């Protein structure tokens, strides 16, 4: 089967002409909280410098991220518990085997595990197809072994990496959603070589502490303002056009788990719990609902416009 280029994965239809998407119980905006719980190798394969700052081991980088798992994660967990926020962990799967305390805390709260690769300094760029197939096989084996026998349904590529085969190999390993695609406010079909169903799950680099606070210079207050501004708009637009939408709040323990950030995380969670139109849920639940109720009609509508790429 021939290669599908990235632009051709996308099934285009403007929001304004699509069949309606709805969420359970009349909710109009689904929000998934995606804490990125990551592991970074002390000396990554190849020995490359993690940030180009100093040669590996970069202890400033390593320890900053390790602090996220030692203290930040647990602080964030207290806010998650206080507001009862279902979460979809974007997980360096090494955590399942090597950090049982964190694994068990997530499982106890029924968090969904979304793969974020094995380790976050091991991107999968240029991986030959067979090696990438093995990557997915190992990923599922880790989850089934260490996470209550559950399989992984979604992926956010490690360091947001992928190949031209990633979507096809995901469906081969039973996955249904891919969060690397941020092209929409609804899940959308992604073309695969086998024709098996795969959808995009709107992740966010907007409502995301790393781009916003760590890479750029914004404040915790601004993160909260961005969350409110985005979701307020989505609620308003959904009321107006009847199209239910998705938002994602992406966090990292080494950023949002820092002590000075906790009040902002709590402000975000309080906001999410302030409006009954918001469906605070997990990515897999959104994916299941979309696949069961909307995928076929949305795909058919897009293809009917005779604009499908063949």
């Amino acid at each position, binding site marked *: 089967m021939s290669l599908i280029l*990235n632009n051709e994965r996308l099934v285009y239809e403007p929001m304004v002409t699509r069949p309606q998407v709805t969420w359970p119980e009349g909710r109009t905006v689904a929000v998934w909280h995606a804490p990125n719980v990551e592991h970074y190798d002390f000396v990554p394969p190849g020995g490359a410098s993690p940030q180009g700052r100093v040669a590996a081991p970069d202890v400033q980088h390593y320890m900053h991220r390790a602090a996220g798992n030692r203290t930040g994660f647990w602080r964030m967990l207290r806010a998650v518990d206080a507001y009862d926020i279902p979460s979809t962990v974007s997980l360096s799967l090494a955590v399942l085997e090597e950090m049982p305390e964190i694994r068990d805390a997530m499982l106890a709260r029924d968090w969904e595990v979304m793969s974020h690769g094995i380790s976050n300094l091991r991107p999968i760029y240029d991986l030959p197809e067979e090696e990438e197939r093995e990557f997915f096989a190992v990923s599922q084996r880790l989850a089934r072994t260490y996470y209550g026998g559950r399989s992984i349904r979604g992926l956010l590529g490690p360091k947001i990496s992928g190949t031209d085969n990633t979507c096809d190999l995901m469906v081969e390993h039973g996955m249904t959603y891919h969060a*690397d695609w941020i092209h929409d406010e609804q899940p959308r079909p992604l073309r695969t070589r086998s024709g098996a169903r795969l959808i995009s799950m709107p992740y966010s*680099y907007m409502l995301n502490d790393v*781009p916003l606070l760590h890479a750029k210079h914004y404040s915790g207050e601004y993160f909260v303002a961005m969350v409110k501004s985005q979701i307020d*708009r989505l609620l308003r637009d959904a009321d107006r056009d009847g199209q239910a939408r998705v938002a994602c709040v992406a966090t990292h323990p080494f950023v949002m788990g820092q002590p000075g950030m906790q009040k902002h995380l709590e402000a975000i969670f309080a906001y999410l719990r302030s409006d009954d139109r918001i469906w605070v849920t997990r990515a897999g639940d959104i994916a299941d609902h979309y696949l069961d109720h909307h995928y076929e009609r949305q795909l058919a509508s897009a293809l009917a416009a005779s604009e499908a790429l063949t």
Partner: protein
Amino acid sequence: MTIIQNPPEAVVFAPGLPLAYDGHRDPWALPDGKKLAVSLLLHAPSYQDDVPRGAIKPLMMQGGVGRETSEPRHGQVARLSQWDFGLTVGIWRLLAIAKDAGTPVAVALDQEGVGRMPRLASEVAARADEIVVRGRAANMIIGAGMSRDEERQYIRDARDAVMAATGRSVAGWFGPERGQTSDTPLLLREEGFAWFGEWPLDERPVELSDGASGIVALSHPLEAEDMFSLYTRGLSFLDYERLLNDSIDQLLADAEVVGARHLGLSWFGWVLGQASFAAVAERVLARLVHHPDVLFATPGQVAALPR
């Protein structure tokens, strides 16, 4: 007498651009004594993850995971999908906001976008007051290394594709990444364009001279552009809104001193069309449309005003 000896390989001034300065030229005047002409150009560019061999790509672009502006490694779809957001959602949100405000709007489309997504072209054509040509793709640009014939063909192909897909005539051009060569204005004029928008040059339309005589450079200031202010500069959306409002206040005041002004708003579906930012568009347009001293028109209409 000249003291400066310019290096022979230097091109010291932009070809065909008359040197002119506020206070040293006749003031521009608008119909009915208006002080500020405002136009709104919405960009609907398509980003191509796989670019054909030989196409010229920008060296840096906005969009993607974080602050990186270099080309993403193949396999990272963050920039592709962030730009594509403008086509699936963002442009429609901005078009709805402009319609609610009652402001005329132009939309810039590119060749790859209309070719791959016919419904993008048809739905934009149904909503936009003016269609503008935006080259081949967001990341397939005009630039150094292109021969004049290659550049002419690039312009023709894009123009023909956009006209065919939308069923509309076009008079305006806005090259992706504001990419040009020294020949671009001349070639655009020869290919029938009346105006182009890439130059953040002036606060009134500028007619070119020499070979490009007759074509109008209609400025779109970087500071008023969402991509530049929110991404390149990294302003907060609240600071961006303040900047726009302060600029409007100042331009209205300056019109009394140096003649009527033009503000070319340049907004991207993938930037201001994001739910977090869209309220800025809504509030700024609402303010402008009710202002008694503001003439709101399409960029093509502004370019066609008496100079």
